[in-house]
């Protein structure tokens, strides 16, 4: 009798199932596109890494979830922040000097006591900093289109965005976003005075109708040409296992090693843009310069502003450093996102509850009232921190960031529970109180108490997977 259907025995079926399972298993552990060499920039741009697919519960919105009264916003002088002269002005010289005496004594005592996370090897890892030179203009070491005797690169804003994203993600950035500068709104997020050296006043940042950027540190100004209308804002992810061990020297490394990477990446980006034929104005400081990073990250749609004033992204929570550059390469204007974070912060308050310095505002609703304090911006409705208290504490203990560790969003995506939590917050805010309680039940404070165990972990490159 002729066979009209191919027959498969049960044994063959199970064998095939096993083989296909093994194939799928191997495919899942191989790096993506490992068999596809990248031949040119167009191919690089076509790779999925060039565009980040956001979770389905992240909504794109017209206005950010944090309320901003743009006419009230003034360009901010970086000199006032706690990391510049702000702390000294707020505390007074005597108290300020005492903070650093306390920090030195604490460090010495804790090394002598072999306190977990603050031993000599922990101090060594924190202090293992090495920065590439950062500057406003950039390294200027790559060829220009003129030197190559070719016209400069031209693409649509969307193509340019994809190209820049591909470049940055290849070199270590997690999120990449764009903001078009508008004189009445986003341009006000550029500092009026840039970051200076130590506590010194930095150079003035003038936005003028010039063709080329100018830096004159002797006379104390930098000029951003008006035609450089686009900000590229990107994040560098920090290691969870460091972040989860706060108030230790080893835990504090989570910030510094990403600032180290930023110094290298910024120069690479500036050289990349130079060869394409565009200016790329960078941060002339290792930590923060040029503009309000959180503001740009929120306006670009990388995340929402949290209770502590940092940006929280749907993917990595609070665990990233945000960096920026300004360019004249045309780019699309990003839009803010809403994934329920701002509303969740109103009920959660875990950071405020567990802040060792009691510096985080526990109020349910944010406020427009900045208390008239010189180190606070105007025109933004937020939960105002007690910045001097926070900054003095973290300097005394040589690094804190407990708020980063305890945040319910500071979890990786291995657990399906955490995806369920994020999805619920985005779609059903009525359950927000339940999720805070659930976070306490499953993760306690969210801190890994075994600071010394870090050295025994078998971590992936950069400490995250």
């Amino acid at each position, binding site marked *: 009798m002729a066979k009209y259907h191919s027959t498969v025995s049960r044994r063959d079926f199970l064998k095939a*199932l096993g083989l296909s*399972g093994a194939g*799928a*298993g191997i495919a*899942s552990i191989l790096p993506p596109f490992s068999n596809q060499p990248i031949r040119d920039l167009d191919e690089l741009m076509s790779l999925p890494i060039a565009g980040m697919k956001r979770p389905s519960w992240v909504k794109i919105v017209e206005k950010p979830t944090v309320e901003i009264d743009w006419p009230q916003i003034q360009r901010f002088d970086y000199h006032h922040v706690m990391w510049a002269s702000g702390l000294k002005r707020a505390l007074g010289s005597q108290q300020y000097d005492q903070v650093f005496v306390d920090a030195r004594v604490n460090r010495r005592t804790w090394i002598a006591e072999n306190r977990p996370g603050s031993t000599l090897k922990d101090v060594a890892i924190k202090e293992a900093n090495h920065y590439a030179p950062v500057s406003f203009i950039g390294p200027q070491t790559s060829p220009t289109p003129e030197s190559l005797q070719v016209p400069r690169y031209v693409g649509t804003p969307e193509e340019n965005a994809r190209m820049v994203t591909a470049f940055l993600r290849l070199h270590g950035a997690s999120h990449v976003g764009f903001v078009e500068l508008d004189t009445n709104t986003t341009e006000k997020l550029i500092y009026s005075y840039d970051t200076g050296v130590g506590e010194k006043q930095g150079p003035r940042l003038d936005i003028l109708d010039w063709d080329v950027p100018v830096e004159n540190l002797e006379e104390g100004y930098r000029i951003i040409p008006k035609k450089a209308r686009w900000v590229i804002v990107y994040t560098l992810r920090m290691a*969870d*296992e460091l972040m*989860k061990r706060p108030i230790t020297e080893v835990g504090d490394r989570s910030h510094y090693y990403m600032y180290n990477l930023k110094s290298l990446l910024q120069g690479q980006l500036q050289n990349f843009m130079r060869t394409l034929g565009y200016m790329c104005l960078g941060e002339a400081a290792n930590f923060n310069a040029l503009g309000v990073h959180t503001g740009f990250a929120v306006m670009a749609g990388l995340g929402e502003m949290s209770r502590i004033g940092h940006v929280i992204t749907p993917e990595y929570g609070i665990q990233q450093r945000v960096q920026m550059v300004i360019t004249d390469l045309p780019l699309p204007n990003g839009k803010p996102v809403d994934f329920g974070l701002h509303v969740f912060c109103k009920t959660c308050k875990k950071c405020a509850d567990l802040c060792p310095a009691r510096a985080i505002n526990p109020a349910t609703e944010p406020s427009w009232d900045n208390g008239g304090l010189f180190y606070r911006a105007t025109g933004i409705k937020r939960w105002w921190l007690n910045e001097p208290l926070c900054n003095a504490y973290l300097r005394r203990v040589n690094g804190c960031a407990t708020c980063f560790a305890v945040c319910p969003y500071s*979890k*990786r995506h*291995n*657990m*399906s*529970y955490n995806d369920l939590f994020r999805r619920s917050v985005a779609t059903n805010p009525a359950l927000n109180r339940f999720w805070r309680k659930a976070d306490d*039940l*499953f*993760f*306690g404070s969210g801190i*890994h108490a*075994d600071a010394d*165990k870090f050295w025994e*972990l078998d971590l992936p490159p950069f400490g995250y997977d």
Partner: protein
Amino acid sequence: MFLAGMLAGIALLGLVIYIRYKNIDIRWYEWLLGALGIGLLLFTLQNMDAALKEHWEGTHLTFLLVFGAPALVLIALSAALPFLRSLIRKKQINNPDSTSAK
């Protein structure tokens, strides 16, 4: 998880074949209880495994207690209900007067 999914699929296939072979009568709500139980059990196992990978001490045990225990109760219920029903039916067959007398 791939292995867990494959094993769960094979176990489910085996269960269906066994139920058909033995001609066991299963009601829709027993299927539902069983599906919920298995879903919750897989959720528990996945989260326990991930919690250990992320070095959350004690979290895996909390997952076991909060989700694993109800999962086992649901699975036990979905298995016990048809079994109890078949026991009652067997009793009725062996002793037909007991129902007619009532």
